[in-house]
């Protein structure tokens, strides 16, 4: 397939033209999300569309495309229909006939499937508030292209920035542009990407490596997965530019084990990019060579940390090593190595196409561009959102997220996962960027954003994260190994109602010590969830200690299920109780044996009369 190889920028743009030309007779496209929506049967919907379209002889003019995350996961499975740009949610195979005959054949919008706002259906995706407030530029192609077809990416301008860069621009110039654009790493710490590239470029040595960190360990975050599954070429394009800028000829992508589809899509993308000569030797006739391999992680959170990740790639236990030496001088196989996050790489083509000034016009003074958040927890529109740096929590949680379900109160939002912190309601209007979050005791992290309401116990949340980091601690350094275990013990005691007031000061003191003395970022940030909840929700801690109550009804040892007088004696709770501790005659108020209750909560969930309190 030698004739397939792209030899110049001209070849690439000509190819893009040819691809659009070949799609001229496509009248409509049915885009079906296959990322999260897959879990709710999107595949069946796609098959049904294909079958029914071909039965109606429409398969030549209507394309069914399996795309990446469209964003509004709360309405899954999602189907987006071009050219009408109408978004249908909660689609099942049985709805397909109607959609074909009304929307595809006649262009009619079916109100019952579209998003409703204030009771009114919103026909166009761009008018839906969830999307209106976003600036989807990194995610631009996500949900619009078939990630397994490089032609789809190329038609949308994919690889143009990279090919232009490696054929026309000097590496130092690219690095300067990146620094000027102000792109900061999206994997956690927010270190300027251009500077890091500069160090790797300046490091002596002929053999250099480039690594893409797709370990995405934050539990409750799925941005990188969505990018890799939905638009892998954008990440590869960013890596190509980075490789050229630092002078690496070999790249590795380290993908979390739990993401088999991301791995599959990246592997397909690599093969297709090689066929076009966009990876491999003499890329696009530039003389520059770069190739990429995919490695799967094996399930260890600490391997997201760069030195542990490198250890894991070398076939070792994933334990961090002290820095310096930094990977830029001594990384994979002891060679200069540059490591960036998936989203960081996906931003690079944008920096080049918009130019440093264009790119840096978005965002705040010190944080440029956009950030993708995985919005989840107690919020209506859970999903993937991309907003300019400096957007406020209120915009994200209320305007995009649609607020808290069941008319509950917002209590806080956890940003940055186990390394981050909890931001309380009083900062809803604070612009979010790397530095403002730091001030508030949280971090940008990778972009997990979990919304919490009045039913979330902040002490329990702190305990939850500590439990996570403590079990994920690799055990190499004592402050992290022993310190987190000690903090966890104290938090568990508080949750059981056995805490002392002096524990709170002790937690703070210990937290500060662990922060300062730990070897890697895992330990250095592990106390954050505790310190930030102590800072903003100290009264909840005190309640657990002094009054032995948990106002959110979460901490089991402080809970008592009691059947109230309003009980109508329907017997539903008695039926579900797995340990048979509820007694009572039909139509009589029931009783619950406190001593034997295991507090599983089934009766509470089952009762339709609010007759059980806790």
């Amino acid at each position, binding site marked *: 397939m030698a004739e397939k190889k792209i030899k110049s920028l001209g070849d690439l743009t000509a190819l893009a033209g040819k691809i659009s030309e070949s799609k001229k007779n496509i009248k409509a496209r049915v885009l079906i999300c296959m990322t999260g929506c897959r879990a709710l049967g999107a595949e069946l919907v796609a098959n049904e569309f294909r079958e029914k379209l071909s039965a109606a002889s429409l398969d030549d003019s209507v394309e069914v495309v399996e795309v990446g995350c469209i964003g509004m996961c709360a309405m899954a499975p999602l189907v987006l229909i071009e050219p009408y740009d109408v978004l249908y949610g909660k689609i099942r195979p049985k709805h397909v006939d109607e959609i074909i005959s009304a929307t595809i054949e006649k262009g009619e919008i079916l109100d019952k499937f579209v998003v409703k706002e204030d009771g009114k259906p919103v026909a166009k995706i761009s008018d839906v508030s969830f999307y209106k407030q976003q600036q989807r530029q990194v995610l631009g192609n996500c949900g619009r292209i078939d990630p397994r077809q490089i032609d789809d990416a190329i038609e949308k301008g994919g690889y143009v920035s990279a090919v232009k860069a490696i054929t026309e621009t000097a590496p130092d110039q690219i690095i300067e542009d990146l620094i000027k654009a102000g792109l900061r790493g999206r994997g956690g710490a927010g270190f300027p990407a251009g500077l890091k590239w500069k160090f790797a470029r300046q490091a002596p040595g002929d053999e250099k490596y480039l690594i893409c960190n797709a370990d995405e360990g934050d539990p409750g975050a799925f941005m990188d997965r969505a990018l890799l599954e939905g638009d892998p070429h954008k990440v590869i394009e960013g890596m190509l530019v980075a490789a050229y800028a630092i002078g690496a000829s070999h790249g590795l992508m380290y993908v979390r084990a739990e993401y088999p589809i991301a791995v599959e899509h990246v592997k397909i993308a690599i093969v297709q990019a090689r066929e076009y000569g966009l990876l491999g030797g003499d890329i696009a006739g530039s003389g520059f060579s770069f190739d990429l391999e995919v490695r799967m992680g094996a399930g260890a959170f600490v391997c997201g940390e760069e030195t542990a990740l490198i250890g894991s790639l070398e076939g070792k236990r994933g334990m961090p090593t002290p820095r310096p030496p930094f990977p830029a001088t001594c990384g994979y196989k002891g060679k200069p190595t540059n490591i960036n996050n998936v989203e960081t790489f996906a931003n690079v083509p944008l920096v080049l196409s918009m130019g440093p000034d264009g790119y840096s016009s978005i965002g705040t003074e010190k944080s440029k561009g956009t950030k993708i958040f995985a919005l*989840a927890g*107690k919020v209506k529109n859970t999903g993937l959102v991309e907003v300019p740096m400096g957007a406020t929590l209120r915009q994200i949680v209320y305007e995009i997220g649609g607020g808290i379900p069941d008319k509950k109160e917002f209590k806080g939002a*956890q940003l940055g996962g186990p390394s981050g912190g909890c931001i309380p309601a009083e900062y809803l209007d604070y612009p979010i960027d790397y530095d403002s979050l730091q001030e508030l005791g949280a971090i940008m992290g990778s972009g997990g954003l979990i919304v919490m309401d009045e039913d979330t116990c902040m002490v329990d949340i702190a305990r939850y994260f500590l439990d996570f980091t403590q079990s994920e601690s*690799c055990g190499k350094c004592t402050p992290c190994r022993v310190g987190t275990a000690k903090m966890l013990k104290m938090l568990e005691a508080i949750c059981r109602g056995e805490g002392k007031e002096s524990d709170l000061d002790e937690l703070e003191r210990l937290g500060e010590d662990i922060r300062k003395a730990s070897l890697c970022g895992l330990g250095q940030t592990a106390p954050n969830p505790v310190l930030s909840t102590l800072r903003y929700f100290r009264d909840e801690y005190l309640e657990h200690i002094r009054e032995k109550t948990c106002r959110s009804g979460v901490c089991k040892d402080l809970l008592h299920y009691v059947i109230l007088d309003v009980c109508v004696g329907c017997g539903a709770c008695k039926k579900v109780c797995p340990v048979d501790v509820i007694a009572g005659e039909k139509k009589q108020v029931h009783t619950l044996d406190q001593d034997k209750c295991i507090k599983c909560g089934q009766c509470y969930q089952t009762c339709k009369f609010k007759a059980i309190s806790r």
Partner: protein
Amino acid sequence: MKVNNKQVVLDMRPLDEILSSMPEISQGDLIPLLQQIQSRYGYLRRDVVCEMSRRTKIAVSRIYGVATFYEQFHLEPHGRHTIKCCRGTACHVKGAPEITEAITRVTGVSPGETTDDMKFTFETVACLGTCFLAPVIMIDDDYFGHLTVNKVEGIITNYE
């Protein structure tokens, strides 16, 4: 009759295939190698690991050092079905702890364990990446989202 007390005779062919597909094997290939062995044999059988060590000259201690560090590797066989309960943040705030307890009640095993009849292995995972379904569990390839404690038993007893 003489009883063969080796439970299962070791079939080396999968290992042969894996090793011959990777030309020069070094320490750096250890994790992909173990991943392939686990996917072919179901778990990291001791005899396979020892044989692999003999052929690759990677010390058994080193292999076990790595295998026990990463959550993905298991040294015991798995049940016919794997139940994965998400313990991610989104699921946690929506009641994952109660779901975990309910699964233990129904299956009789705690996270990390397999039932005696080899029917279920119960695991918890950091995040299934479907946080919008929270709380969510996966049994083999099927997702069950927006769970309540009440639904757990019905779902699990459906599996044979």
